């Protein structure tokens, strides 16, 4: 028997990408681009096929494969009939369907109750607007969504509802659900009252919609809760069995009921159990949201997360509620807020059970989840464990943002593994974060801060030169980094520590050309380096450069140079003259006694 194969290879790109190293995403932007490319290619092909069905009539497949044939998107039935109405409903043409219905009524034809109910469903579902076609660009979709967010007064839904010869539960249900969906909450409750007056009973969907609308129509927390309880009691009276979505709507509404939500949410869970309805991930998500409010300072009920995790551990979940996908990222947020690494591991274990990975949601939610998890790991775990997770997550599952990489750098710093920095820098470059100046600055300062063994210093120097080349070439279309004084200082000191005098010297000259001023510490480091190699010529040059930057420490530096190096009289004279030439203006402007170059010569001239 073959062993169970785990289909996860952390070094491999996701299956959805082209099997070509060039098209393997390395950054989150590339990830988005490439992961959408396949789907959008498919959609483009579908669009062409559906727009030109006459060219795609050849049916090669035996037996026939319906999904390969063009879909009919256009209306076929022209005459005024109920079939035409049904066709328009099926193709989700809201306006055309309403027109057809009106024409049918004008012609005196009676429309069957099913058809008119379908029409009402359609209008209420799409808010009396034609749905945005899938093949339209995304931007229009967003606009359409916001436009749909408004409920129109005197729209077709109510007009057709009033035209119906007999309004049954289904018609009322559609109207109420549409009203709730498009934000006419008070109106929805009025319609419900109207429905009760007509001695009709509501169905479960109506109640679900009303429960989710309940927090909108009341001000105070207790009033909201009373309204919800009232609705539930009416449900019971009308012999309507609640379903999972009822309880999820209830829990979601409870999130907006303030302090009484905590107790009531637990009661709700018990009620679900009593009714034999298994909570979905959305239910648990709402409970967690009730107990861990982002803004609330008190973290008293921290054990709720543990209880939820024990409850769900090892179970496979199937998506039943659109909110189910929020569970993982919000559970991880709570783990991060409470700095609970054990719970985080439990959440991640749950994600690996069965098909639960599907519940993580789209790539955006995935990146949030993994970002939080990685942040927590960097904060709480030893660097070896962090690096293990880093290897597992980074190339294939998670593309960290600059903040994530800074967290990693800090973790490296905490556990004294700064020797990893050059490797991390390669990853940073690969992930395209090498143009984030704060990240690069942090990396450089970490490299420059401490003294390390020569090998590490050597690798740091290579890394620093790489960073420098990045500043210089400006990487084509991408924004080049702007040199900062600290970055230059750090690079120079890293180079000095690695005994790369020539490159360090080049850097020092670069300060001048970029109009940046090196720090005094850097000058000291330079001097120490020059001392160790005993090169008076360079020492004098250093003092001259320092003077040219008008560093206040120049005289001290000059003095130390004179003390440190055995200079001939001639050399000293040239040196002082050079200083004078360089710093004439400065000499006048800084009249302090000790700092004047000529004073340096005083002991020399008898």
């Amino acid at each position: 028997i073959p062993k169970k194969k785990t289909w996860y290879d952390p070094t491999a790109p996701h299956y959805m990408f082209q099997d070509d190293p060039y098209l393997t995403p390395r950054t989150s932007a590339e990830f988005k681009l490439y992961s959408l490319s396949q789907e959008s290619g498919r959609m483009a092909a579908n669009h062409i096929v559906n727009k030109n069905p006459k060219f795609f009539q050849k049916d090669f497949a035996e037996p026939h494969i319906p999904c390969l044939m063009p879909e009919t998107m256009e209306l076929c039935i022209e005459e005024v009939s109920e079939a035409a109405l049904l066709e328009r409903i099926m193709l989700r043409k809201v306006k055309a369907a309403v027109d057809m219905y009106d024409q049918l009524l004008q012609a005196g034809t009676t429309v069957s109750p099913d058809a008119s109910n379908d029409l009402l469903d359609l209008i209420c579902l799409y808010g009396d607007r034609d749905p945005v076609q899938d093949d339209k660009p995304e931007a229009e979709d967003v606009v359409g969504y916001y436009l749909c967010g408004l409920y129109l007064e005197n729209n077709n839904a109510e007009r057709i509802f009033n035209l119906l010869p007999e309004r049954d539960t289904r018609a009322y249900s559609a109207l109420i659900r549409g009203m709730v969906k498009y934000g006419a909450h008070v109106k929805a409750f009025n319609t419900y009252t109207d429905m009760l007056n007509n001695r009709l009973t509501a169905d479960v969907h109506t109640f679900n919609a009303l429960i989710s609308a309940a927090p909108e129509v009341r001000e105070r927390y207790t009033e909201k809760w009373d309204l919800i309880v009232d609705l539930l009691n009416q449900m019971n009276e009308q012999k309507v069995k609640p379903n999972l979505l009822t309880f999820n709507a209830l829990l979601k509404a409870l999130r907006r009921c303030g302090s009484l939500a905590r107790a009531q949410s637990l009661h709700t869970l018990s009620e679900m159990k009593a009714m034999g309805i298994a909570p979905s991930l959305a239910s648990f998500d709402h409970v967690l949201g009730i107990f861990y409010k982002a803004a609330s300072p008190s973290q008293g009920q921290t054990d709720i997360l543990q209880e939820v995790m024990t409850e769900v551990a090892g179970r496979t979940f199937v998506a039943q509620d659109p909110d189910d996908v929020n569970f993982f990222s919000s559970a991880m947020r709570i783990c991060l807020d409470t700095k609970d690494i054990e719970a985080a591991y439990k959440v991640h274990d749950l994600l690996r059970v069965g098909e639960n990975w599907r519940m993580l949601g789209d790539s955006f939610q995935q990146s949030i989840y993994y970002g939080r998890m990685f942040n927590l790991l960097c904060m709480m775990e030893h660097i070896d464990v962090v690096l293990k997770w880093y290897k597992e997550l980074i190339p294939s599952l998670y593309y960290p943002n600059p903040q994530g990489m800074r967290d990693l750098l800090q973790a490296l710093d905490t556990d004294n593994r700064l020797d990893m920095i050059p490797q991390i820098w390669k990853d940073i470059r690969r992930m395209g974060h090498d143009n984030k100046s704060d990240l690069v600055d942090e990396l450089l300062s970490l490299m420059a801060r401490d003294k390390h063994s020569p090998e590490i210093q050597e690798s740091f120097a290579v890394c620093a030169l790489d960073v420098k080349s990045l500043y210089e070439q400006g990487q084509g279309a991408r924004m080049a980094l702007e040199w900062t004084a600290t970055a230059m200082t750090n690079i120079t000191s890293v180079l000095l520590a690695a005994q790369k005098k020539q490159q360090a010297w080049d850097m020092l000259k670069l300060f001048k050309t970029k109009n940046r001023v090196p720090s005094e510490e850097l000058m000291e480091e330079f001097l120490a380096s020059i001392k160790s190699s005993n090169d008076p010529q360079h020492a004098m040059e250093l003092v001259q450069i320092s003077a040219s930057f008008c560093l206040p420490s120049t005289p001290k530096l000059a003095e130390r140079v004179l003390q440190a190096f055995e200079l001939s009289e001639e050399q000293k004279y040239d040196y002082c003259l050079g200083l004078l030439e360089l710093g004439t203006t400065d000499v006048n402007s800084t009249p302090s006694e000790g700092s004047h170059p000529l004073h340096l010569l005083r002991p020399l001239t008898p």
Partner: protein
Amino acid sequence: MVGEKVIELQDYVKMVAEQSEQRVGVKMEGVTESVKIEEIPVKMDSEKMEEIQTKTALLPIPEVKLEDVKESEEMKEIMLASKTEEVKQKLEVTMAVVKEGETIVEIQVKTEEVVDVKKEGDKVVEEQMLEVNKEEQQTEAPPKDEIQPVKSGKESLLDLLGAMKVEVTNKRKFKALKVQRTSETAARPMPAAMESTTSMFQEATGMADVPAPAPSETLSPELVAAVSAAAATLPSQSQAESELLKKLRQHEAIGEAQKNGDVNNIGVIIADMKVGKKPNGRQNARPANQIRFDEDGRGYTHDRGITAELDGGLRRRRSLFSGKRLNIFTPSTEPEADTDIAVPTLWDMELANQVALSTNQMPRNGFEEMIQWTKEGRLWQYPINNEAGLEAEAQVPFHEHVFLEKHLEEGFPRQGPVRHFMELVVSGLAKNPYYTIQQKREHIAWFRDYFQQKEEVLKEAEVYLN
């Protein structure tokens, strides 16, 4: 150990049987129960026996064989003892049933009593066989027993047998038929008995070729009559009758679903099937490699659905659920009504769409992608069914496709060149697997019209002889 192997083997054999059943599905449609059961062995003997035998050869059968040997020796003794007047009397009862029911549902109908009779009757034949060729009987026994699930692999039969609390193997059933025949001719010698079984097979296949009535939700009147006749032999007549009819309807429904490409049902039924032994002393002496059913008469347990699973999941007391509840709803124990199976409205579709969009549906590897394609219908379903996509034609028996001469009866001359031409057309059509029966008829009808239009011309040429 052996028992496990045997159960495995039976599962395998059943699987094979299902496939073969699909293959012969065209003929099965609407044919009465017993015919179906007989029909498979006919195919089976040639096609599947080899497979089965090779399969059995791999198993550590010796123990089983030994048992069989012992058993057959025991049987001899029993048989000798059971040759009584009473037995013969009951055999006559069986015959009466058979006559009433036109031999159709004979096996389903056996009460315990009758079966016992038959068992003892078996021994009569068995003894003869043993006398003639005891060696053969011993070696044959295991494969024969393996065939039994093949034959009864039809879930209809399983349902029936399970519901009737009767243990019948086809082996015994054949024997019973033999006994009937032997009782007619006063214990014929063994070769004759064998002959009678083969003739029975021929009969069975002959019946299978009889045009099947169009499938409908109701059972055919013949079948209903047979069932009521069968039920008449049982103590509680009306109950048994309704039970039988219910089972038959169930089977028909399942058969229909299966023909329409819904093969899941069988999997469910097989998965739910319980294989066990009866602790009854006498029955323990039988070969262990037979499917037994539960004592509760259900045969198999229904899927209890998600709520049952849920009970188990929630029964653990967690502090998360241990608090008091809202006490608004009263949980009802009565099963969920069928209201949820109504036509999905736009809202339902929209919700399903939202849920699907919110989750990550990207395949993670090639297999998942292929699973997705299979669901979309782009790939063949497994197991491969070469009649996939021919669901509409599955209702049409093959002879409708092959024997098309009857369409030449009207509108064509009895002899002459036109007739000769049309015979060629018909023979070509008979071999054409691509046309539906309707298309073939239309094809012939077109020629009929054509020749009728050209009647004058043909008469002038003196070829249209009628």
